[in-house]
């Protein structure tokens, strides 16, 4: 080994590199604040106006809560899922498309640092989106908060899941058409049919499988429990399922990164 290599101090975690990934993504995100934050907040405001003000008096109460209080957690969760998925899928796809992902590939960054850096940004964006919607809801009396720790858990856990799913799609996609396919065919239908706007009891018995088999049902009910204390899914099952999904998706993403799938030639 030559002097150049001998003078190197052994490299531990590249904290500055990891922080730089987050910093770069935040700076990129702040170029499009309307798309990143204002759009979901306006969408939440519109739901509050329609379900709380226009239709509020005609809707029945659920579990002692007004209809707007019942649907707000679902609306919040749908926005978190969208924010997380779009942030990570577009970031990875754009960096592959323009090839600036090579900046990271030639740097002394481990694959784990790259994944953690990307997910940290996703969680940040989803948290700002979610907490913004919560405050808007609280300001208009459309929601409350029962448990802050559970609320934070659900935002972080669900945004991690969809951040990881977004990375998978961003690595797999070869066109903008493919990038949008999961939103059209999975994210929107599963979140609309995951109990955002109705309870399990509103469905006929033969359709209950549609909710029990839909992971979004557990996420939406989890955050609903944290916000208004109404939860149709067992909390333990929801938490276990969520952690399992993080583990499986995280392992898959890390494996694909270390193999260079979609990244290296």
């Amino acid at each position, binding site marked *: 080994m*030559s002097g*150049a*290599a001998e003078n*190197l101090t052994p490299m531990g975690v*590249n904290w500055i590199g990891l922080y730089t990934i987050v910093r*770069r993504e935040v700076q990129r995100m702040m170029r499009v604040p309307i798309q990143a934050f204002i759009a979901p907040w306006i969408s939440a405001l519109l739901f509050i106006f329609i379900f709380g003000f226009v239709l509020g008096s005609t809707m029945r109460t659920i579990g002692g809560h007004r209809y707007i209080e019942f649907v707000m957690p679902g609306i919040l969760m749908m926005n978190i899922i969208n924010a997380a998925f779009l942030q990570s899928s577009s970031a990875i796809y754009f960096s592959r498309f323009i090839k600036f992902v*090579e900046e990271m590939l030639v*740097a*002394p960054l481990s694959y784990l640092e790259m994944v953690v850096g990307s997910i940290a940004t996703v969680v940040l964006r989803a948290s700002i989106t979610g907490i913004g919607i919560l405050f808007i809801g609280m300001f208009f009396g459309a929601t409350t908060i029962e448990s802050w720790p559970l609320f934070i858990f659900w935002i972080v856990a669900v945004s991690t899941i969809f951040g990881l799913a977004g990375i998978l799609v961003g690595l797999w996609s070869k066109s903008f058409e493919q990038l949008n396919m999961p939103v059209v065919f999975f994210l929107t239908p599963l979140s609309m049919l995951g109990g955002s706007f109705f309870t399990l009891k509103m469905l006929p018995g033969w359709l209950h499988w549609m909710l029990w088999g839909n992971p979004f049902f557990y996420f939406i009910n989890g955050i609903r429990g944290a916000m208004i204390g109404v939860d149709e899914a067992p909390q333990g099952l929801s938490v276990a399922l969520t952690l399992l999904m993080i583990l499986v998706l995280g392992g898959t993403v890390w494996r694909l990164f270390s193999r260079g799938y979609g990244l290296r030639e």
Partner: protein
Amino acid sequence: MPTPALSVRNLRKVYRRGNVAVDDLSLTINEGDFFGFLGPNGAGKSTTIHCITGIAEPTSGTIEIFGLDAVKNYRDARRLVGLCPQEFNVDPFATPGQIVDWAGGYFGMNRAQRKSRVDYLMERFELTPHLKKSFRELSGGLKRRVVLARALVHDPRLIILDEPTAGVDVELRRVLWRYLQDINGDGRTILLTSHYLEEVERLCRDIAIVNAGKIVRQGTKAEIAGAPGGLENAYLAATGAEADHVAGQ
């Protein structure tokens, strides 16, 4: 015997569709050398560089950077290398300062180190007046300066320049040549690919010519360019050009 700056042994790279881009290529570059890596388009120069820097995964063979395995010990090996790629692989909406600063961050440089280095490189490559422009607003020559500054931000021991002067005007080419000669004089090792033979002849001390994924000629500049017809003749002969295609004949 001192450890070479770069040692490539029996490198082979086969792409997914079976295209053999590099085939049993071996190369040694000594520390402090200014090495010219020549070959026609598609000969395997960029693929070799991509394998060295981690953009591509070698199919087989070994690559060592200052004695460090570039695959097994990739993190430490990459700290010693700076790459100026052929393509502008840059976030087009970012500013020159951001691009160079982020690169410094990836290499673990703290804020003070980055600031001082970014300021120096912006000044050196006359990018200071363009600091607030986005990359896509810059001219071709300015873009080239930005990617070069990015490659140098962590003051690497081995600098790999893949056609750094392609599409660049004479003035910048000369600024760049002076800078490269300066840092080579300071002990930095440089691997340069270029289609401008006069550039290679002017700057490099050792030369390798690659064709169809294999090294077809390697030696000192005197050995290769010293024969009648100079480097151009040697290059065309090594890459299989017919005699009547050779310039000047």
